[in-house]
């Protein structure tokens, strides 16, 4: 063990894993957090104000096209948050870095809220476009299922008392859930095409997005990414403090 640590020290700051040390993470994140928060606020305000006030209406969809600045970034982040949880869960399972597991825990509610935003804006957008609040469109359905996965993941974290046990179990769930999320995505595609052949309701955003809409969208996406990073940093800091608090209380009880 001592040798281990010696070797680690000699490699010095170069190693990325240094930041997996809770203390190092707290130091670095304390510096990073205000920047991330500020930048994300800036990007969000610029992107959304630009999108809301200074973009023309789409000739087909009218002003509803403005919903894109919320819908697309939140949907992107809903998926990316899960991917980030998958990566951090793997890191926890393989390298046993506590910060990694706690970051996954911190990201889950953010991902869930992003999913809810994507679904809500999708429904609000769908109402005038498709004439219904909810259509079992493959894309919407996949997001609904993703939301259920987030719920289960969060509930498992809350239910298990021992923090390391919870980290292990949720990590395994995240891995298995990822496989099933992909499976569900294909199953849903298959299922809906089976129902309404040829009548696809999905809007292909990427195709008909012109530059006037594209630039504010990019700023808005950057804002959502930064918001996610800032929130995860903040929430991971809270989780680390919570763990430390628990450790201190346990120690007190023992003494």
């Amino acid at each position, binding site marked *: 063990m001592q040798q281990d640590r010696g070797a680690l020290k000699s490699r010095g700051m170069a190693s990325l894993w240094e930041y997996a040390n809770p203390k190092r993470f707290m130091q670095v994140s304390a510096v990073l957090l205000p920047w991330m928060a500020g930048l994300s606020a800036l990007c969000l305000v610029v992107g*959304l104000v630009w999108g*809301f*006030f*200074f973009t023309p*209406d789409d000739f087909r969809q*009218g*002003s*509803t096209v*403005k*919903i894109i600045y*919320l*819908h697309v970034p*939140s949907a992107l982040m809903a998926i990316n948050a899960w991917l980030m949880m998958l990566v951090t869960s793997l890191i926890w399972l393989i390298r046993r870095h506590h910060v990694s597991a706690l970051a996954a825990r911190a990201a889950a*509610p*953010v991902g869930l*809220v992003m999913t*809810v*935003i994507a679904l*809500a*804006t999708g429904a*609000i*957008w769908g*109402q*005038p476009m498709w004439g219904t609040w909810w259509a079992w469109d493959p894309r919407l359905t996949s997001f609904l299922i993703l939301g259920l996965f987030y719920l289960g993941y969060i509930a498992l974290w809350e239910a298990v008392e021992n923090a390391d046990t919870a980290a292990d179990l949720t990590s395994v769930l995240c891995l298995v859930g990822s496989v099933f999320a992909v499976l569900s995505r294909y199953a849903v595609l298959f299922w809906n095409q089976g129902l309404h052949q040829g009548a696809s309701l999905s809007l292909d955003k990427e195709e008909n997005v012109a530059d006037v809409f594209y630039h504010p969208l990019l700023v808005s996406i950057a804002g959502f990414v930064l*918001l996610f990073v800032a*929130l995860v940093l*903040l*929430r991971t*800091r*809270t989780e680390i*403090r*919570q763990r*430390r*608090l628990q450790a*201190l*209380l346990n120690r*007190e009880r023992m003494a």
Partner: protein
Amino acid sequence: MMPDLGKYAAEVAAAYIVSIVLIAGLVWASLRRGAKVRAELRRVEARRGRSDG
């Protein structure tokens, strides 16, 4: 200043309001829990500092 949103004004406004409320709620909840845990940790550390010292 307010752009003319045409016949979809309600939908667009609703989407923005819902999203902003959700994000604000998440930020608020994160900050509040952060402050709570931080204060609790400070308290326990201070107590331990005394009892140890």
